[in-house]
């Protein structure tokens, strides 16, 4: 009997190439597009502090020149392929992705593969250094970026996660192309790369092509030293006259990425600080106190961070802080009810299914599953995991990873240091 397959009737594939490169894929019927990415398991936390920013700078250099293409050829090719494309660097990953219509996939994969093998020439390095310095200057004027930077330093101290993804003008000016090449040689090997793909494609063809494209790539190193995380509570205010609004981040440690309590933690963040209908939404947005009030979960390989982010006018900052601490205390003493949990699950379940209709989101979701669970999960499996979180699970979570009172609080804006105090 013929049935129309829908986007929910996906097929999942995994394959480890003999050269060590891991491939993961989700074939989605009923779409024309396909999204693919090469993920290199390296990022800012893997850098030598004196070379802070090398991962991100390297990502930029990929678009300057690769083994077979000049930068112009790459840019032109992406346009000819009608591609949506980008690359990004974070603390643990660097990725190069594109989304195209199926008929353009083979050439797109060729280019994406090339991007992981830049030639790193001195002249291009010097020009791109200027662009990186411009980017640093741009984000120096973005209050949220400045706040997060300071917060990560306050939270992680000397730990590698405290480093700035962009680097600093000092480290970027001091960096040499040889140092970048040496970093690339160590970290961009097949053993440290994952290829993910979602949408309309033929798995066997893609495996064959990626195998061919990565033949001759060196294996490189993989893994990273786990550095012990030591969080010391603190309260710091950074007077910054050039900003108009006061920004505050409140952070506590939480579960690492592959912890079985991951979904409980995600639900907690939603209940506390989602854009709509959350505790912070009612206490701060609906009351007009804070222009922005959210809670987010940021997971790393061996640790996690639960952070509340607030933006308000300076004259309301103390009140906003006090109200937020009161909300955190309430949740810590555990006043979450079943009905609230059910509503949160309904929200998350719906957004999971809707997200599942997007090839981009699925291509990203595959990596998340792979790194969290070590395997691929169907949407139904994820839905069940969300569904299975109970009030007891949430209570156990806040007992093991308290939201309050021991926190790292970082504030920045026009307020002088003594104008903001830790709430009583």
């Amino acid at each position: 009997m013929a049935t129309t397959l829908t986007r929910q009737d996906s097929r999942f594939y995994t394959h480890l190439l003999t050269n060590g490169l891991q491939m993961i894929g989700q074939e989605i019927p009923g779409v024309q597009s396909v999204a693919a990415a090469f993920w290199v398991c390296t990022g800012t936390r893997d850098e030598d502090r004196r070379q802070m920013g090398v991962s991100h700078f390297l990502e930029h250099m990929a678009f300057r020149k690769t083994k077979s293409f000049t930068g112009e050829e790459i840019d032109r090719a992406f346009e000819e392929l009608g591609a949506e494309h980008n690359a990004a660097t974070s603390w643990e990953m660097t990725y190069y992705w594109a989304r195209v219509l199926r008929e353009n996939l083979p050439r797109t994969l060729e280019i994406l593969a090339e991007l992981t093998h830049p030639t790193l020439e001195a002249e291009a390095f010097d020009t791109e250094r200027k662009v990186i310095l411009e980017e640093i200057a741009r984000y120096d004027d973005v209050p949220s970026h400045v706040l997060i930077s300071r917060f990560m330093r306050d939270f992680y101290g000397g730990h590698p996660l405290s480093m700035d993804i962009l680097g600093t003008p000092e480290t970027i000016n001091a960096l040499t192309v040889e140092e970048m090449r040496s970093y690339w040689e160590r970290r961009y090997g097949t053993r440290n790369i994952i290829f993910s793909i979602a949408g309309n494609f033929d798995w066997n063809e893609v495996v064959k092509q990626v195998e061919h494209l990565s033949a001759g790539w060196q294996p490189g190193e993989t893994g990273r030293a786990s550095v012990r995380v030591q969080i010391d509570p603190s309260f710091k205010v950074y007077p910054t006259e050039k900003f108009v609004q006061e920004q505050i981040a409140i952070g506590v440690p939480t579960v690492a990425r592959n912890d079985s309590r991951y979904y409980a933690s995600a639900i907690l963040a939603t209940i506390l600080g989602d854009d709509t209908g959350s505790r912070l939404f009612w206490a701060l947005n609906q009351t007009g106190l804070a222009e922005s009030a959210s809670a987010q979960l940021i997971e790393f390989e061996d640790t996690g961070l639960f952070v509340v982010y607030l933006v308000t006018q300076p004259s309301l900052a103390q009140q906003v802080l006090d109200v937020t601490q009161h909300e955190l205390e309430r949740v810590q003493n555990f006043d979450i009810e079943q009905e609230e949990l059910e509503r949160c699950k309904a929200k998350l379940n719906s957004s999971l299914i809707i997200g599942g209709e997007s090839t981009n989101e699925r291509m990203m979701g595959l990596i998340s599953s792979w790194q969290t669970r070590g395997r691929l999960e169907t949407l139904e499996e994820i839905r069940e995991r969300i569904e299975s979180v109970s009030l007891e699970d949430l209570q156990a979570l806040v007992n093991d990873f308290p939201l309050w009172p021991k926190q790292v609080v970082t504030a920045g804006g026009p307020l002088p240091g003594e104008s903001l105090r830790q709430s009583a």
Partner: protein
Amino acid sequence: MEKGERFLRQRLSNGTQVVGEPMAGVQSAAVGLLFGVGARDESAKHFGISHFLEQMIFRGTEHRSAREISEQFDRLGASYDSSAGIEMHVMSCQMLGDRLLEALDLLGDCARFPAFPDDAVESVRTLQLQEISQRDDRPPQKVMDLVRRELFAGSPLGNDVLGSPETMENIDRQALAEYHKRFFRPDNAVISVAGNFDWAPLIQKLEALTADWPVGTQRDRLSPPEPHQSVTVLSKEDASQENLGFAFPGVAASDPRYHAAGLTAQALGGGTNSRLHREVREKRGLAYAAQARFDGFENTGLVRIYVGTSPERAPESVEVVLGELRKLEADGLEPEELDRAKTRLKSQVIMRSESTYARMATNMRSWWMERQLYSLDEAKQRIDRVTLGEVAALLRDLGVTHRIAAVALGPRSRQDLFQSEMVPS
């Protein structure tokens, strides 16, 4: 039309046009309610009221409190949003298709019967005041907004979307209710639905929701604005970058040259293979961000360029941008350039159509602007039909090099930055 693609249309009893596009193979549905009201409709006393009203729209109706609205949306697993800009207010919602009709009950209630509770009015006032001052914390966005306002100075299309601290004090429940009554009418609206839904029950629901909704919108006619050349330099000593914005006129969304304008803007600054990206960033390392974008409004259009560069290199950046505009006006686009821009745009159109939300929004907008809906094939054909000659003629008509508004925000002075004869001193 592509296999399986079909449009459905229905004019409701009191005039609202409903457009629908069922999509196979998806579970979600997206709905949008568009009302023709925005900053351009405001009086000086109440600048910012459209945005204010938009912030109020989910904060309580005659039948439901803000909390009830929020909890009911959440239980339906529906994500919801509203946005108000220069000429339109859109309320949108996305959910699994089997919850659409219930979500419409909520959406319809919010659209028709907002209560504007006093405490909510005070909260939104405070928040909008915060938004107004927060603009100074976002130099690129501030520059992009200012350059529109400068180009369209003297026209309501140049109005400040957020208003001012003064006008915020003038807005109260009565003003909001009157504004709502004037513009939120069925004859001033389009409803668009896309995804997993059944048409007949949808229309039945919408008829019920819009029953007895009085018609009679009083929206002022707007003449296309005269573009206003100007240079504005705002001093910000402690900014790490010099933020540069340039604007010149485009064409209206319903103009036959709409796609020619979009493709030109794309070739100029719409991606990593664009002229601005190559000349400003790749070749000279002058900036991280060097972009152009085109926006089509109901009776005019706008092309804006943004470059963020270090203060020392800002004069050079200005020269490079103006040089590129001169070259563009003189020589137009290369054939391969136009072809590649077409390929990219067509690809984007197709890929975007996989999203129920994007499909809903595209149809909503194209019905509002043109009273037309375009299948994917038709959309691709319209793009393909653009010729080099058309682009050249457009550039001549727009007169890009002598109808520019420029804004700079950063440490540099006017003399340092704007030496060229292209911008008036």
